[in-house]
C-alpha cells in the first residue's frame, strides 16, 4: 500500500496535483452554494421588509387625504 502511495517516488507531485484539483473544484462549488444561500437570505429579508414598509404607509395616506 505504501508503495502505491509513493507513486514511484513522485508522491509529492502526483498527490499535490490531484489534491489541488479536488481543492479548487470543491472551493468553487462551496463558494457558489454559499453565495446562493446568502442572496436567498437577503432576498427574503428584503421582501419581508418591503411588505412591512408598505403596510404602515396606508394609515398615514388616509390621514393625509383627510386634511
Amino acid at each position, binding site marked *: 500500500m505504501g508503495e502505491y502511495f509513493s*507513486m*514511484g*517516488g*513522485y508522491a509529492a*507531485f*502526483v498527490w*499535490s*496535483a*490531484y489534491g*489541488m*484539483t479536488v481543492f*479548487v*473544484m470543491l472551493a*468553487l*462549488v462551496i463558494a*457558489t*452554494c454559499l*453565495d*446562493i444561500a446568502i*442572496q*436567498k437570505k*437577503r*432576498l427574503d429579508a*428584503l*421582501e419581508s*421588509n*418591503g411588505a412591512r*414598509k408598505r403596510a404602515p404607509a396606508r394609515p398615514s395616506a388616509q390621514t393625509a387625504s383627510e386634511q
Partner: protein
Amino acid sequence: MNPMSSPTFTQRFHAFANPARFMGLSDRLIAPCAVVTALLISAGFWFALVNSPADYQQGESVRIMYVHVPSAWLGMMGYMVMAGASIVALVLRHPLADVAAKSAAPIGAAFCFLALVTGSLWGKPMWGTWWVWDARLTSMLILLFLYFGYIALWATIEEPQRAGRAAAILALVGSINVPIVHYSVVWWNTLHQPASVFRADGPTIAPEMLLPLMLMALGFTFFFVTLLMLRMRAEILRRRVRVLQLALGEV
C-alpha cells in the same frame, strides 16, 4: 395564424430570456448534471490513479496528465463560452447572455490556474524546473491574465447593465487577440529556441491512457456546465436583491 402552432426557434430562444424560466429549467437540470459529474469524475479518478499503467519513460508522474490536460482544455473552453456568450449579449441582446459570461469566467479561470499548477508539478520531476517559458505555458499564463482582467472589470463597474456591456466588449476584443497573442508567443519561442528538444507534450497516448483522459475531460465538462448553472442562479438572485435594495432605498 394557428395559435396552437409549435413555437418558432426565436420564440423558444427568448423563452429562456425570462430569468424565472431559467430558474425553473436549471432547477430541474442541476441535480442530474451533478450526478453525472460525480460519476464521471469518480470513474476518471479510479482509472487515472489505479486502473491505468505507468509510463515507461515518466513513471507514475504521468498520472498528473489526467488532471493537467483536461484542466487546460476547460481553461480554454471557458474563455470560448465567455466569448460566445458575449457575442450573444452584444449582437442578439439576449438578457441572460451576460449573466452566462460573468458566471463562466471564474470557472474557466480556476481551470486555467489548475492547468498551470499541475503543469508545474508535472514539469518539475520531468524537466527539473518549476516553470519553463515555452509557448504553451506562456500562452496559458496570458490567458489567466485575460480572465483576471475580465473578472476585475465586472467587479469594478457597479451597474450590471453597463458592466455587462463593457465586459462583453472586453471578451470580444480578447478573443480577437488570443490567436494573435498565441501566435506571437509561439513565434517568440521558436526565435529563442530554434531546436527545441524536449516535448512539452508528454508521451503519445496509449489507449489505456485515453480512457481516463476522456473520462476526466468529460467529467470536468459536466462539472463546468453544472457549476455554470449554479453560478447563473446566484447572479440572478444577486440582481433581484439589488433591484429590491434600490427600490426600497436601502443602497
